[in-house]
């Protein structure tokens, strides 16, 4: 009597993934459409940025740090500056502390709105993608107006910032904030009330509070699971201690925490609202004063050349805590530099999130932790020695088809 043996399939994704900062390889074990198990491997591409820094002085490294990520082009150099300031005992003027908050919050809003668009795209809802990115465009215009460029801000300086925000600039900032507030209601209705969104995101990619704590998830991903963790509140830096700020968890809006993709949308939308309020508070409370502690850069460089020691810089990037370690050894160049971006923490939580989900949910679940993640994956399926490739397009099509199916 012959017996049927049921087996599962292996389905690798990655490791080359252009949309991610860190290329990553997934290995899925699937049974039909269902994901039974998933394994994630990291470390495929090392850009040697930290090594490149060893041939540069701290001022040059600011711009190198800016290029770690295009979306976080402010928090990386800032975290680096925080570390160097700690080593060299540089006091940042109060006015600059407020300016730093304003830039950080603008970046957070840009990132969250960008992410919201990507999330819509992943479930095949492209009209929403264009709506959200239109809103983001206004924020990029504001960024350009304040710092001189849309993406690479080049605003960080050790001991402060490089450009002031003067009262003549307030009307433009306020106008953009007003536009955001008006558009916020539009976004809220689309993301939180639309049937399509609810069907695709509720109960999908659940990360429980226990898992979030155990796997040390960071940023909105962990807050959506109900973990109260935010560097801005826990370890107040910049001028956050003077501002009214609290942890954003989904229960503020719905009264319950599910830890699913829907909750991650809620948290990010709430944080956009919080950022608007933080910038408004900054504009009100900002005291006048210098923007940087040492305006003469040559002098600052000479000072940094003499310091010896190590320090860390932590701040809340849009995706979670970013951590920089710097060591200087009384030399012109940096001795050591280590960066830990929040995505690192948010990779392990993918495993509990993806288990028992369907293949069509991979894009939205993976994207729900990281705004950069778009499904440029390539899947190679090997079945009976025949190889076929599930490319980005087909994976995307599957996702769209699932949305359609649910509507029937």
């Amino acid at each position, binding site marked *: 009597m012959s017996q049927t043996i049921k087996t599962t399939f292996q389905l690798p994704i990655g490791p080359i993934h252009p949309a991610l900062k860190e290329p990553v390889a997934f290995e899925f074990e699937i049974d039909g459409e269902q994901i039974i198990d998933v394994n994630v491997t990291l470390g495929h591409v090392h850009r040697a940025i930290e090594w490149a820094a060893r041939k*540069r*002085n701290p*001022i*040059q*490294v*600011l*711009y*190198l740090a800016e*290029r770690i990520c295009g979306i976080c082009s402010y928090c990386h150099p800032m975290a680096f500056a925080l570390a160097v300031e700690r080593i060299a005992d540089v006091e940042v003027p109060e006015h600059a502390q407020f300016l730093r908050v304003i830039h950080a919050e603008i970046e957070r809003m840009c990132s969250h709105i960008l992410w919201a668009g990507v999330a819509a795209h992943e479930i095949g*809802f492209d*009209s*929403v993608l*264009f*709506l959200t990115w*239109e809103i983001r*465009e206004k924020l990029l215009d504001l960024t*350009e*107006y304040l710092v*001189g*460029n849309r993406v*690479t801000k*080049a605003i960080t300086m050790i001991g402060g910032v*490089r*450009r002031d925000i003067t009262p003549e600039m307030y009307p433009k900032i306020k106008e953009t904030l007003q536009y955001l507030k008006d558009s916020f209601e*539009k976004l809220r*209705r*689309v993301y939180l*009330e*639309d*049937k*399509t969104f609810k069907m695709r995101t509720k109960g999908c990619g659940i990360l429980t509070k226990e898992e979030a704590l155990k796997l040390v998830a960071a940023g909105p991903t962990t807050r959506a699971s109900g973990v109260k963790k935010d560097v801005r509140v826990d370890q107040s830096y910049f001028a956050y201690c003077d501002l009214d700020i609290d942890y954003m968890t989904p229960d503020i809006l719905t009264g319950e925490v599910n830890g699913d993709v829907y909750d991650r949308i809620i948290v990010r939308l709430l944080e956009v609202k919080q950022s608007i309020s933080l910038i408004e508070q900054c504009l009100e409370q900002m005291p006048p004063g210098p923007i940087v502690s040492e305006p003469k*850069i*040559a002098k600052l*460089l000479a000072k940094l050349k003499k310091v010896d020691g190590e320090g860390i810089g932590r701040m809340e990037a849009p995706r979670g805590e970013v951590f920089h370690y710097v060591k200087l050894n009384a030399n012109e160049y940096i001795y050591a530099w280590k960066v830990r971006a929040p995505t690192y923490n948010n990779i392990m939580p993918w495993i509990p999130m993806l288990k028992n989900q369907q293949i069509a949910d991979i894009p939205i679940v993976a994207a729900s932790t990281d705004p950069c993640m778009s499904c440029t994956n390539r899947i190679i399926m090997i079945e009976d020695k025949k190889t076929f490739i599930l490319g980005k397009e087909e994976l995307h099509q599957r996702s769209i088809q699932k949305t359609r199916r649910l509507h029937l």
Partner: protein
Amino acid sequence: MRFSMLPQVFVQMFKKPFTNKFPAKYTPSSTTKFVEKIQNGTVTIHPPVPIPEHFRGKIRYDKDKCIGCKLCIKVCPSEAIEFKEEEKKIKIFLARCTFCSQCNDICPVSCLSMSDDFLLADTDKYSKNLIVE
């Protein structure tokens, strides 16, 4: 609402497009001819979105003012600046430049500044347009 995006989509259909059609409203069939026409003034280009006041574009260099102190070379993160020993002047390769304007900030005689010129695309990274000296 069941499909809260629907009304928005209808509104969007009748709205003016958000995108600025720069430099031409429709793609010209021949780019070279289009450029020629612009040069002899038969067509005008669609204006770009206005550039904010402190935009960081192509670097301007006031060669006569430069004292050859090499400070800009010291802070340039991308090693885009070369020092010309005989003349004691600098040469900036814009193809490497990241437009951070750090060289502008450190220059003791303020001979460097950022212009609002952003049209810098070129097929040759050593073209005249991309070297400032």
